């Protein structure tokens, strides 16, 4: 099993090298003619207005929050799914309780407007 992950590690390292390779190539062969206008930030050809980094709405945070909770729920479902067929009927009722409680969470988030974009 460790050998499997050794392969994955080699894949990641060699892969990172292969992705960096074109970047090295362009660093070597690309033309360079830097003048100030070229380094300006793009905003449809007009000078930029204000900073790009400004404070954003809380709705992004709410979405990622609900996502984290449901992601954790899903990781509990993975081992359950693997053993489900070889377990007895009790497994069905277990997961029913689990999912009903989490569905309550989804309904709460829905009703409280955490899932609204505007």
């Amino acid at each position, binding site marked *: *099993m*460790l050998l499997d*992950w*050794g392969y994955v*590690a080699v894949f990641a390292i060699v892969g990172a090298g292969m992705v960096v390779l074109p970047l090295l190539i362009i660093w070597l062969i690309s033309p360079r003619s830097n003048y100030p206008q070229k380094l300006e930030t793009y905003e449809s050809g007009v000078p930029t207005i204000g*900073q790009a*980094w*400004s*404070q*954003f*709405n*809380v709705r*992004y*945070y*709410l979405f*990622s*929050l*609900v*996502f*984290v*909770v449901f*992601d*954790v*729920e899903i*990781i*509990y479902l*993975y*081992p*359950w*799914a*693997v*053993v*489900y067929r070889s*377990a007895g009927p*009790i*497994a069905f009722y*277990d997961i029913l*309780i*689990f999912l009903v*409680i*989490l569905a*309550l*969470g989804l309904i*709460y*988030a829905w009703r*409280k*407007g*955490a899932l609204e974009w505007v």
Partner: protein
Amino acid sequence: MIGEAIAFYLLAAAMLGFGVVVVTSPNIVHSAVALVPVFLGVTGLYILLNAEFVAGIQVLIYAGAITVLILFVIMLTVGGTGLRIPERNEQGPIGFAVAAALAAMLAIGVTHTAWGRGGGALPAYTPGAIGQSFLGPNLLVFEGTSVVLLVSLIGAIIIARKEE
């Protein structure tokens, strides 16, 4: 098991290096992004401990979900503007002394303890085995976790929505 030893030291070195970046970088977004290699290092350590399911969920949750959450939160605050926060103040030397004392204590503790060596291979923490424990001895914990998740979801929504 020379390969495992090499892997462990490489992972530990990478984690420590990026951990230093997380703690000392004046740009908070850099700190958050440098957390990702630390999480991936933890993944590697889990794999070395034969816990590949936990490693998978470590990547899925920490590197995938929690990093996104942290980055969104940073963008909501003034740190997202690239503001450089000074990392040192007048308590620097005292902090360093405390940290050094703690490190010395831990080092002495680790080297002077008679660690018992368990024999044989590591147990298999496969998804099947974990699933069996969920449906068997740890059933109540499994159901209890759903309640914990529900409570945390409700609590976080209440806190976040109140600021509107």
